[in-house]
């Protein structure tokens, strides 16, 4: 469960990347497609080349949604309810992939923040992404 300290740290980190959100999103997806090729199966309709507009656009969407989550850490389930429906009934992305995305987001944050990506922040972000994944998979069955 996210402690008050975790929430503070997640908000701090998010502040540090505000302004680079589109880059963070695009890079996260690019890394995910490179490291975990099976994730590409959800995007047969996308141009997956480096710098593709579709990747940038989708990355921006994903990061914006995470931003919403960061602003609503006390009621994730409610704040992400629509997204939760979308994933359960339309997208039906297998939940193992949430962990893969989370790993790549953490790598991007670590690349971006270097030493500032402390173990405490790493822990808080890992817990946050885990909580988001839970909410997204909530209505699957």
């Amino acid at each position, binding site marked *: 469960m996210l402690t008050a300290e975790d929430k503070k740290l997640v908000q701090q980190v998010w502040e540090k990347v505000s302004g680079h959100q589109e880059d963070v999103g695009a890079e996260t997806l690019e*890394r995910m497609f*490179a*490291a975990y090729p099976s994730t590409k199966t959800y995007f047969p309709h996308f141009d997956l080349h480096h710098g593709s507009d579709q990747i940038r656009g989708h990355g921006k969407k994903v990061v914006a949604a995470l931003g919403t989550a960061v602003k609503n850490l006390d009621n994730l389930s409610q704040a992400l309810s629509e997204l939760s429906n979308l994933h359960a009934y339309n997208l039906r992305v297998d939940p193992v992939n949430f962990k893969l995305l989370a790993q790549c987001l953490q*790598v991007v944050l670590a690349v*971006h923040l270097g030493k500032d990506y402390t*173990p*405490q922040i*790493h*822990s808080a972000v*890992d817990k946050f992404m885990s909580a988001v994944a839970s909410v997204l998979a909530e209505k699957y069955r």
Partner: protein
Amino acid sequence: MVNWTAEEKQLITSTWGKVNVTDCGAEALARLLIVYPWTQRFFASFGNLSSPTAVIGNPMVRAHGKKVLTSFGEAVKNLDNIKKCFAQLSKLHCDKLHVDPENFRLLGDILIIVLASNFRKDFTPACQAAWQKMVRVVAHALAHEYH
């Protein structure tokens, strides 16, 4: 037999060449114990692990982290033979240490984040992809002799 492309081998060995095994090992193990506190179950004899600061400063964590990463280095030197290279270690982790192989995957992912925070832009997507494969192969090899 794992199929490594020439590029993957190059990315893995060149990154490894820049790794400070002592510091990186200590950091990876510390983060494992902090981010996934249940992994502390294997380290009851390590003394104070009660806070992130305690874990990071714990000399036994540092020493053990170095030991673990030094072993990892053996895999880097034997990319075409990792299963064989780790057969004994695998038996040890199963028969004596009783470590759930899931922990190898957790540590592998943490190592990647440590590499990312140290090498930053140099830890390119291609580099990460090669390393995600590497940690997956190592975890698999360590689990291979389990019964």
